[in-house]
């Protein structure tokens, strides 16, 4: 029995959608891990949020000053700002201008 083009196409799509995505995720996360290890060998801490994620965290803190978790959120925000200001290597793609514009909350 010869396989139809439709079956072969579906097989290829399935392998790409599952094994392709899983392999991409595995390789990406392992590379990120290596990069984090490399950074932490050079310095004792590093940035914990991407620019977009830190921006959203700041917006939430400012919008929810009475939230029970706001102190923890502020602590995590300041921790990232301190790391960005006091270290020279970043994990996320921060520009110098972005780092200079940050302020502790």
């Amino acid at each position: 029995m010869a396989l139809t083009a439709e079956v072969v196409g579906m097989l290829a799509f399935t392998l790409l959608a599952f094994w392709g995505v899983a392999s991409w995720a595995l390789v990406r996360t392992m590379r990120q891990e290596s990069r984090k290890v490399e950074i932490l060998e050079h310095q004792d801490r590093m940035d914990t949020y991407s620019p977009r994620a830190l921006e959203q965290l700041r917006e939430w803190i400012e919008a929810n000053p009475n939230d029970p978790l706001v102190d923890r959120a502020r602590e995590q925000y300041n921790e990232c700002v301190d790391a960005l200001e006091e270290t020279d290597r970043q994990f996320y793609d921060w520009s110098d201008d972005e780092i200079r514009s940050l302020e502790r909350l």
Partner: protein
Amino acid sequence: MTSNDAKTARAEWGTRFGFLMAMIGAMVGAGNIWRFPYVMGENGGGAFVLAFLSLLFVLAVPGLMAEVALGRYSQKGVIGAFREVLGPGGLVGFGVVVLLVNVALMSYYSPLIGWTLYYAVHSMLFSFTASGFEPATFMNDFFANSALMIGLHTVVMGSIAAVLLLGIRRGVERLVVYAVPALVISLVIMTIRGLTLDGAAEGIAFTFGIQWEYLTYSDTWIAALGQALFSTGLGWGIALTVGSYLREYDDVPLGGGVFTAIGESSIGILAALAIFPVVFAVGLEPDAGAGLAFVSLVQVFPEIPLGGIVAILFFVGFFLATFTSGVIITEVGVTTLAEETRLSRNQTVLGLCGTIWLIGLPSAYSVDTLDYLDFVFGNWGLPLATLAIIGVIGWVMGPERLRLLAVNRNAGIFVGRWWNPVIKFVVPAVMLFIMGYSAYDSFGTPEMYGGVAVVVALPIIGYVVMSVTEQRERGGGGQSEPADVTGGDD
């Protein structure tokens, strides 16, 4: 426990790979090997893949991100995580529900691991390729031998206890970093063998042929939904527990969400490629469950060149898949109870494994009991556990808080605000639908009454247990302290 101070230092995964393999090892189980390929072939092949894949991305990936993130945020087992969000009091009992569901699940999963162990041993003795071997008779004799079943259940729980006694890094991590790749390699070799057989194309056509009309059938979507949620173990406390051992700078969403959900499903796809080409090559009808693994495939091995070796690869891989799941399902209870009681980790391992062994005896003794419990807990207990975990994240902690504080912190991918309504509305609604559908589908049967009993009794037990224990710990009186986090109305 010798002292509370001894519990202050919490273990961590030694490597990123160890965490990832722990997630995959926990989620890949019997369902990936003996259920997924058949469900896929029976529900439109490629059409099912599309339905399944879309539900994985919509439900399982975000759901797993949430569960791992809660574990990472709280750095505690299931009860501790609930207390972290809800504050002390009876409602922490929902964590007890998750714990009890895991113990019940493990009580009937351990005998099933025993089946795979028995077949793995016989594959290594080349029993299946011996002349005059009758698969159906062999299986029926095995299932009728209660003493053997109980013996295997005992060996399995003893082995699980031995791994857990070694701890997170030296026990669990060391096992999964070898067992999961070994399972994948076994299936890949079996796939290559199967695809090189005459007639293998029929198996591929059965599994991957596209019947588009199946996308319009509700049964296809319900099957895909069940597979996407149950195969990934979403909301069973496993991802929460594994996530609680993450290190300071570890990512949650890429590894705990995308890789885990898609990676574990990939093993189901690989199982389909490994199994159906050989089944069709020798002219057998596809089957599901024990019939596929223990009868159909066993009939296949004598018919193909190097069948004895293929049998070893398959059954050893199958055993590893179930055993790693068993180890980590049991770890859910060990982590939680070691935190919540005065017992040391070793005492907890021995006590819990002994308890699971004891309550697993009826399932080991009778396959009918195992089937009954599988139906009741699969359709009611596990969705209840998922509702408890996702419910507490979605409606108490609030998905926005968790997203900002744990999901996107050190993350390998950015998770946007789209994630919040999925966790708050979509996943809980789907779990309620599954439970409602189960009630409708099995209305008036003993399974339905058992399921209703589980849904009613476990929360009550959990509430009472936590009300009493937490009150006692606070010195025997007073109101519950208010929760640190309330509302979740983001």
